C-alpha cells in the first residue's frame, strides 16, 4: 500500500489530506502516477500538473516526471511552499 499525501490547496482539491492506495503494477513514474490519479479525479489530476507542484517520494523531492515511484511507501504532492 502507498500513502498519497496532499498539502495546501491540493488537499482542498483532493478533499482529503491522505489516500491509501494500491498502485497498479504499470504505474512506474511520477508522470504515470499523476495520470492515473487524473483518470479517477480529473480536477485533482489537473491540479497536480500545475506549475510549482513538487512531488516527494518517501520524503525525498523528485523533480523529474520520469522519477520512479514503484515501491514507495509515501508520495507527497506539495503546492509551491509559502514559507512560515
Amino acid at each position, binding site marked *: 500500500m502507498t500513502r498519497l499525501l496532499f498539502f495546501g490547496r491540493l488537499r482542498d482539491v483532493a478533499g482529503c489530506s491522505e489516500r491509501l492506495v494500491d498502485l497498479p503494477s504499470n504505474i512506474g513514474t511520477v508522470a504515470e502516477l499523476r495520470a492515473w490519479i487524473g483518470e479517477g479525479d480529473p480536477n485533482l489530476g489537473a491540479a497536480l500538473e500545475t506549475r510549482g507542484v513538487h512531488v*516527494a517520494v518517501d520524503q525525498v523531492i523528485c523533480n523529474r516526471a520520469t522519477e520512479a515511484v514503484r515501491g514507495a511507501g509515501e508520495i507527497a504532492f506539495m503546492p509551491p511552499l509559502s514559507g*512560515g
Partner: protein
Amino acid sequence: MIKTLVSLDAFAPDAELARFAAARGENSGAAVSFVGYCRGTSAHGPVTQLELEHYPGFTEAEIERITLDVAGKHNVADVLVIHRAGAIEAGAPIVLVAALSSHRAAAFAAVEEIMDYLKTDAPFWKREVGPAGARWIEPTSEDQCRREEHNG
C-alpha cells in the same frame, strides 16, 4: 547546540530565549534573536488566524538541514529554531530563531539567513483566515523567480 523544533502548540519566546541564553558558553558574547508574530492584517485585509500546514517529518528534516548548513557556514555553535504549525491566532508568536556566538556579525548573519529561508522556502502551506473567509497564500511570481534563480 543546534536545536530545531516544529511545534503544534503555542510557545513562549521569552522563556525559550532565556533558557537558550542561560546555557551559553563563557565566550559566547553575542546573542541575536528574531521573533515573528502573526500579524492582524495582511495585504488581503484583517487576519484573525493563520493556519500553517506542515509535512511532519519532512518539514522538520528540511529545517534542521538548513539550520546546520547556516550554522556551519558562519561557525555559530548554538542555534535555536522554533516554528509553529497549526492554527495561530493573530498576535501569537510564529517563529523564534536565536544564535549565540563569540562574534556578533556571525550571529546576525546566521539568524537572518535562517529567517530568509523560513519565510520563503520552508515546507509550510499557509492559509489566512479573516472575516471574509480563508485563503491559501502562495508565493508571488516574484518569490518564485528569486527561488528558481537560487536553485539554478
